[in-house]
């Protein structure tokens, strides 16, 4: 999941500064920031009977519903094992409401706000040689602030990525290109080209709990180039399954970000940020096509530029709908 944070810097007389944070997208049910996907999947069901795909899905979700084939119905020559064409494409819709106590991400201009976000993502992915996962996606997103409407933004993102398991680790590489505009699309705010690499692992602690440590590096080329930066992040996510459909997770992350040239003629300083974030979340996925999340984060950012230091508390329920085909 991607996180999007915004800053309003009165001191620099900028309308807004937009940064695209990173999330650990390969780990299911982890939300590292703002944004949830709302998508819709229509189930086509034949009148009076399930399709074979639906029956297979049911059998995989509940293996106890399928009795093993025994000699009564199993002719000696049986060898008919199913193969299935996986659903490579999806359309996802994320809707979320967020409460933040620091909309401008600055302790010197602390203001709470309520934010509604909506994004629509079209995604295609496959697994090559039963190891290499690759995907490509495109999305449109928007955010609307209740109290500070000047912070509203819209945008588009295109992404491509791949991940490969290496022993007990998973290595991923990803490119995101995004263009962000103001509310009315009449002002371009920032274009970002992100190239990220991360590595993570799954460490089962018991049958229901696993720890996912991760390390990532992200390079951002931005237009305007004041926002170009390089960052590294280190963290871990603890995931615990309460039931088959209800999962909790706790994530801690520390990151360091160094900007190439963050308005240095004005700030007279090299901007370097050190951040730490703690996130707790609850995810409920009653069906394959719908997922509900609730998360809370608290983040602290220390910057060489005093106005950019902040503590931010965020609460967010969200709904995701996914249509796979």
């Amino acid at each position, binding site marked *: 999941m991607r996180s999007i944070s915004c800053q309003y810097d009165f001191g620099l007389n900028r309308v807004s500064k937009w940064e695209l944070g990173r999330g650990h997208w390969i780990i299911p049910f982890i939300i590292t920031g703002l944004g949830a996907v709302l998508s819709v999947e229509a189930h086509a069901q034949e009148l009076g009977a399930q399709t074979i795909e639906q029956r297979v899905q049911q059998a995989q979700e509940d293996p106890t519903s399928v009795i093993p084939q025994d000699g009564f119905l199993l002719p000696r020559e049986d*060898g008919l094992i199913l193969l299935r064409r996986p659903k490579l494409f999806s359309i996802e819709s994320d809707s979320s409401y967020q409460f933040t106590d620091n909309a401008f991400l600055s302790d010197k201009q602390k203001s709470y706000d309520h934010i509604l976000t909506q994004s629509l993502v079209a995604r295609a992915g496959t697994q090559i040689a039963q190891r290499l996962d690759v995907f490509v996606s495109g999305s449109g997103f928007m955010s609307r602030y209740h109290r500070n409407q000047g912070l509203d933004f819209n945008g588009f993102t295109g992404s491509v990525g791949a991940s490969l398991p290496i022993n007990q680790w998973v290595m991923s590489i990803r490119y995101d290109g995004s263009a962000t505009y103001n509310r009315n699309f009449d002002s371009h705010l920032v274009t970002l080209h992100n190239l990220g690499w991360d590595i993570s692992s799954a460490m089962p602690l018991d049958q229901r709990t696993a720890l996912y440590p991760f390390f990532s590096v992200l390079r951002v080329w931005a237009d305007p180039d004041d926002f170009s930066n390089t960052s590294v992040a280190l963290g871990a996510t603890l995931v615990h399954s309460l039931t088959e459909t209800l999962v909790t997770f706790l994530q801690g992350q520390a990151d360091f970000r160094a900007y190439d040239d963050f308005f240095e003629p004005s700030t007279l300083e090299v901007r370097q940020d050190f951040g730490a974030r703690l996130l707790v979340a609850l995810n409920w996925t009653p069906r394959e096509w719908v997922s509900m999340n609730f998360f809370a984060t608290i983040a602290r950012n220390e910057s060489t530029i005093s106005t950019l230091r902040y503590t931010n508390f965020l609460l967010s329920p969200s709904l995701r709908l996914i249509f796979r085909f």
Partner: protein
Amino acid sequence: MIRVIRQRKRYRKFFIVLLGFLFLVLHGVSPAQSDETSANIRNGGQYELSFRRTDLNVLVTVDELSEALAESSVLATLPKDYTLSFYNAYFKTLVPSVLLLRANTEVLVAAVLLGEIQAKGKSAEPGEAIVWPVGGKSIEVVTFDAEKFLEKSQLNLRPEVIASLVSAVGQQERLKFWGLLEQVDLGLFSPFETGDRTSANRQYLENPLVVSFIRQYPDTEELGKAVAEAFVDALRTGELETVEWLISPQLFVNDRGQLNSSEWIELRQDFAFLIMIEYWESLQNEVTLKSTSNDSGWLVTAATYRYHLWLEPLDGMIFVTGFEPIKE
């Protein structure tokens, strides 16, 4: 001398003829192979029609196919442009084909081992199967793992069938490589063999008569009518087995509501026999059936005799739960 030479020539001819005969015996048609040859394969592209039960390894006719499918899979060899119809499902071969046919109370499957078939605008090639779900209105084409089939199948397949499946294996491997096919690790029939199908209810569901009824009459009303007519007709003509299989097993549950597998079948057989000898004679007159509007039953009239027949659904089938004279 000349006589000796002539005799030698005669013997040489004899041995040549003998060798020729031995050659024909060893490499031509033998009695053990005649069955295979008359049934199957390949001479200049012509496939003779044949159906072989895989459990007993015997040939069956096309008229016996439905009954055979209720008990076993059938290996079918079909010529080009042949339309096969059974259990209200039909398909056409586009080329000479070898298929594995299977059926249960929920689905009918035609798995293509060689050739190509088509049904309702959908076609299937080696490694694919056409599935007709009972109660479903449209058929589906599914893919089965050709490699696992070659490993697990105990069918005695001919070389060209094996070659066809090997070719399908190669194609499936390529699709698996690119993630366009994935293994489900379920048998083709597994998703249809749900927990509702226990070993107990299989005893009264998985038999040719019941399977044929369920497959031929997906509509409940039509099924009820067919069962009523078949039951009365079986009583009239003395078909004891039909009477027996159409009587509801629910009449023979014990105090705990369970079927005692060692007793109930015998009880039903005896009960069917008693019913038959009691009502057979009275049903020799012309019989008419009329559905009763107030219950799930039928009014059976045979001359001056009138009976009430009750039906009840059970596990997807409709069985007879009562047959008694109407007292005026």
